[in-house]
């Protein structure tokens, strides 16, 4: 790919105390792709996401987002940057003191100057788009099921139509049907809105259905990156367990290509 990367992680080293998580990790993410970050538990996938979002500071190396180091965005520039991305946290991270409606309206209200009736229409449209009803809008997050939390969190992440969407374990905790629906939802949104997706996932079905490129985190760096087929051909103990284990055969057995429709179409 010759296009300029939207995210450029350059020789990143992360460590907590003496525990090194990433060592000279480099990764480029290009516009409009869906990149899946995979790796065993504790391989630093979520930590990498936090580095890209600028929530943590690396010990060494640079993370560039939209061409500039993420920690160089300060003040109004940082605010403008946050309008260009959205993040779906693993547990949703919905504001528990606010009902569903206000959770989604919050980023729009933070823009200032948008009239409340327009915000209302946009929020209700998004809820309906995520398969939720206007009655759900009045619920508090504690009254939502796991699948609904994910949908509301996705609606909030998409509230400002971001160019860049981060998903941390988007299908974790959902039943297979909900999970398939959620994957389908993201795929339709990606096709129609054309954003870039960086997702951390353990779920092979999700990778098979969504990812245009896979990056495998192991041994403190990106061990392999490329299409799913290419990654699966790599010889490494981790891949044998992860991509060729029993679960993988189940997930990839019939549909070993992401062109194949996954779940319902």
């Amino acid at each position, binding site marked *: 790919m010759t296009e300029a990367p939207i995210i450029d992680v350059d020789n990143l080293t992360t460590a907590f105390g003496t525990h090194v998580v990433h060592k000279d990790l480099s990764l480029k993410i290009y516009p409009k792709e869906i990149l899946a970050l995979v790796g065993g538990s504790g391989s630093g996938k979520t930590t990498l996401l936090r580095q890209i979002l600028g929530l943590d500071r690396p010990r060494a190396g640079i993370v560039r987002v939209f061409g500039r180091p993420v920690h160089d965005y300060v003040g109004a520039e940082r605010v403008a940057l946050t309008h260009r991305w959205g993040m779906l946290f693993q547990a949703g991270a919905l504001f528990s*003191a606010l009902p569903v409606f206000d959770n989604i309206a919050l980023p*729009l209200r933070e823009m200032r100057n948008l009239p409340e009736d327009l915000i209302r*229409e*946009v929020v209700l449209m998004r809820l309906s788009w995520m398969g939720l009803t206007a009655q759900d809008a009045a619920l508090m997050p504690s009254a939502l099921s796991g699948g609904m939390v994910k949908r509301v969190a996705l609606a909030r992440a998409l509230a400002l139509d971001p160019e860049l969407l981060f998903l941390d374990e988007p299908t974790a905790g959902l039943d297979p049907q909900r999970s398939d629906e959620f994957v389908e939802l993201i795929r339709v949104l990606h096709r129609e809105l054309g954003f870039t997706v960086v997702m951390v996932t353990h779920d092979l079905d999700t990778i098979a259905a969504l990812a245009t490129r896979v990056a495998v985190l192991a041994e403190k760096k990106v061990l392999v990156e490329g299409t799913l087929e290419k990654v699966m051909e790599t010889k490494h103990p981790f891949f044998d367990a992860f991509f060729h284990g029993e679960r993988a055969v189940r997930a990839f057995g019939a549909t070993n290509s992401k062109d194949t429709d996954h779940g319902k179409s």
Partner: protein
Amino acid sequence: MALTSGNASTPVLSGASAAAVAPLVAMDGARCRVTGNWNVQALAVKGEVRRLKQALAAIKTEGGWDLSDIGLLDAVGAQLLWRQWGQKIPAGTALTEGQQALFQILADHPVSEAPPQNATDWLAWIRAIGVGWFVVGEHGRKLLLLLGGFVLDFFKFLANPLRGPWREISAQIYRVGTQALGITALVGFLIGVVLSYLSAEQLEMFGAGRFIVNLLGIATVRELGPVLAAILVAGRSGSSITAQIGVMRVTQELDAMQVMGISHGQRLILPRVIALAIAMPLLVLWTDAMALFGGMLAAKWQLGLSIPWFISQLPDAVGLTNYRITLIKGVTFGIWIALIACHFGLRIEPNTESLGRGTTASVVTAITGVILIDAMYAVIFNEMDI
């Protein structure tokens, strides 16, 4: 289709005049051309949406709309156009494939009209008073149940003390007692100094300077020491107990304990109540001692009373009865604070706001209760002539 006359190709509206990206609606012949950026960033300029709405409302076009030169269009901008179009794409409108898809989504997910505002309820305040009483009654009932549960757990503990939660009790005593020594000492000492300093002046006027020992002794040991220590502990440990149990509700730890058959009463409430019942009287004594120490120093500066004399006079002035009263108050306040903190902690719902409210309510109730109990003790001891 007839050409619309007059204002053809006149910009109906422009945003910030120089910026090429500002959203714009303009007539171009029979067609209405929409240009500029129609995304949330461009629309979130003060007054922009209102102006665009007026401009859109003013347009009566027969020739359809042309969106081909639009810069960025997102769901917010599309929603604005969509509403003005009356929830359908006007005939003869040129859309790119992406725009078509976007408006198709809007068409698939119509938004209902805003529900009418409920009429103002003029009698709401009367209802609020009634509800308030019910809430108070509910709190009282729950608190009584909690106390009963604690008494039962305590008897179980006495029947089989070896199986009791000793580690938790010891940890709690350290947390609510040992770690509170610094702050209670500081506050007690300062209050002692202030009290002694102020009363020394008055007493000296009557030449009764040496009665400062009686005044300080009775006031601190009987009233001030216990109440001061209780207020500090309620703010310090009461709030932390409530918050801790509350977060356990949020993180489902309370549910996990129930599933494992571990009783909240035995593992959470019993150790905390016992720990405060043990630590509180000790803290009260400590506060008393510090207040008397501060008062003694102030009396030496102000009245020149010697420290050995002050100490020798103390036993006569205070007496064993007052010493017992201070201990009884300490135990009662400790149990009260722990029960209130646990009560509000267990009532917290799994959201952040409830956590904040619960902690506040816990501290306020604990302190108010301490002062009420203190007043009750004053009446009781007075009737008993001690």
